[in-house]
């Protein structure tokens, strides 16, 4: 833990104030990101994945959303207390973002050229010509044919996949240290998804860009991420290297997620198992484990006490929070046993509720 991480998020708390009360969107999220690493974040929609990312760069919708606790450090520099102008200089140049829907994420009335050049000029004192040359390089790098003439196009003249390539070019324009890709391929056709993901992996590897890849599609993470955080109801409930997590999921929710995706190797006999129920309403502050209501492994303790993220092997030695040797942690009082994973239900009597 002595060496500094590129990005350190500690106990991040985000609240949204609405007419119906405060929404507890993020409830104490902590994670680290090492240089060059790809961290996958998985979870259902509304679990706080996107909000966490927006909070990191200070883009929570104002005035409803607010960071109410915790810290975000980029190379040791605290971001949550930065002035707007200092934060602006971080955005785009040190931490860049790609969003879900390339149809709506590019400004429809501005040419691609303007949108690329303004990004570069927002952070570098360069002439328009130099920025333009750079823009052409970038478009070439993301595989846009005829970049010179395509610069003059408007977003609606591109296909969805091409638009997302432009978004990637824009995000990488200033060689950021961290790239946050929020569901970058969800809105694309399946065939295009693979191409865009390939491109993203190649470019971030070449540049050594650390990436946070948010998706609800665990299949995407399997091929892309070094480590995975599983989020539920505004908290990380399980974390580990991708291999550990997929091979040996311990949190009932992770097990449920894994079992609800189709697998080509047919291990679950091609049968999809949905997770019953819905995520909790985040208006009320969670008491106990937030997954309690939907959990087949729940115990009485889960109703009143909130489980902490602890090493699954009982916690000998220091917890490693990044890199290939990261400790596998889960927040669960009654973790799923290996033999129960395939069954998708508790086999021991000690488990709580049956449904």
């Amino acid at each position, binding site marked *: 833990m002595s060496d500094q991480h590129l990005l350190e998020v500690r106990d991040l708390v985000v609240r949204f104030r609405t007419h119906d009360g405060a929404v507890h969107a993020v409830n104490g999220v902590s994670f680290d990101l090492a240089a060059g690493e790809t961290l996958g974040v998985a979870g259902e929609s509304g679990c706080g994945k996107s909000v966490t990312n927006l909070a990191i*760069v200070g*883009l929570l*919708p104002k005035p409803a959303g607010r960071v109410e606790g915790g810290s975000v450090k980029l190379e040791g520099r605290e971001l949550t207390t930065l002035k*707007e102008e200092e934060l*602006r*200089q*971080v*955005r*785009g*140049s040190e931490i*860049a*973002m790609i*969003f879900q*829907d390339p149809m*709506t*994420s*590019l*400004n*429809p*009335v*501005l040419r691609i050229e*303007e949108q690329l050049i*303004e*990004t570069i000029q*927002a*952070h570098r004192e360069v002439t328009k010509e130099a920025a333009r040359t750079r823009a052409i390089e970038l478009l070439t790098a993301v595989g846009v044919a005829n970049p010179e003439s395509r610069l003059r196009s*408007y977003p*609606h*003249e591109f296909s969805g996949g091409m638009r997302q390539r432009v*978004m990637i070019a*824009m995000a990488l324009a200033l060689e950021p240290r961290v790239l946050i890709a929020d569901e970058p391929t969800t809105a694309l056709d399946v065939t295009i998804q693979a191409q865009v993901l390939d491109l993203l992996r190649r470019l971030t590897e070449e540049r050594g860009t650390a990436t946070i890849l948010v998706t609800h599609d665990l299949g995407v993470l399997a091929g892309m991420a070094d480590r995975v955080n599983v989020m539920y109801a505004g908290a990380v409930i399980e974390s580990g290297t991708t291999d550990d997590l997929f091979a040996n999921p311990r949190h009932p929710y992770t097990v449920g997620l894994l079992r609800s995706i189709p697998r080509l190797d047919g291990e679950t006999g091609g049968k999809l198992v949905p997770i019953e129920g819905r995520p909790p309403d985040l208006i009320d502050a969670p008491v106990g484990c937030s997954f309690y209501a939907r959990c087949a492994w729940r115990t009485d303790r889960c109703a009143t006490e909130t489980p902490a993220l602890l090493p699954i092997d009982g916690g000998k030695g220091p917890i490693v929070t990044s890199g290939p040797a990261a400790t596998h942690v889960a927040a669960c009082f009654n973790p799923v046993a290996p033999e129960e994973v395939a069954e998708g239900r508790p086999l021991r009597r000690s488990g709580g509720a049956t449904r």
Partner: protein
Amino acid sequence: MGRYIVRRLLAAIPVLIGLSILLFAYIRILPGDPCVAILGQHRTPEACAALRENLGLDLPLWQQYISYLLKTISGDLGASVVNSQPFVAEFLTRFPGTIELTIGALIFSIGVGIPLGRLAARKVGGWLDGLITGVSLFGVSIPVFVLGLALVVIFGVILGWLPTQGRIDARARFDATSGILLVDTLFAGRLDLFVDVVRHLILPSIALGSIPLAIITRITRASVIEVANEDYVRTARSKGLKEKTVDNRHVMRNAWLPVTTVVGLQVGGLLGGAVLTETVFVWNGVGRWVVDAIENHDYPIVQSTILVFAVIFLIVNLIVDVGYALLNPKIRYQ
């Protein structure tokens, strides 16, 4: 683009034909004998005969319409029954006053409405937003002539700050070639008179501009709020653009679009409102002329003014739509 304009022009033809039928019918449904209805107390046997001849009242209806249509297209818009002055000649001397007033009102409503709308949008839900919404509510709820009278009383009678009648000091002597006094006084090199014209223009412009001001404020507010929530605005911020750039380039470039359309639609209301405003401020324009024409039962003047105002409205909105297409690349290429 060219094809778009041609298509819009072609679409206006049925409307123009409908308009001509309506206005043709107008003169003919006036109650009673057309001679009595149109000429009223100005009728003499000779005038009646001339009118019947002029309108072709003894011909079959469709022939009358064709002849009205041909005359109108050739630019003959009839004449006053009071003094036999041709419509077009008199209209041209009156119209500059109405243009000046309309432009004054447009400048006021756009110049104040858009900043107010942006301000309200930036402070959604705050007291300033509430105040601006309240002011715009008042703007659409107060009749032009009531506001006009109130302005006359407050700024003219009580405070005495601004003139409340006419377009320029009645004693002013200079060469008014275009009839648009703002331009003429400048060309005549009379800065003092220019200032005088501006002072005369202020109160009528505010009165006439109040409704468009309210509408433009509302639509700007709504549009800015909507655009500010778009994904591409979040993208712009995530790129680290300055807030001013985000606002001016990413928000406003899109928020303009609905605003331009609404501004175009206000022109009809402004021309109509000019009738009332010119009456309140004794303003020498087409509006007051129409009111006089109503009093004198000079219906051909009313008829042709309606025609010309409707055509102006159609032309302005054609221009606005073309401007909209220029601002919005998506339409341009469709």
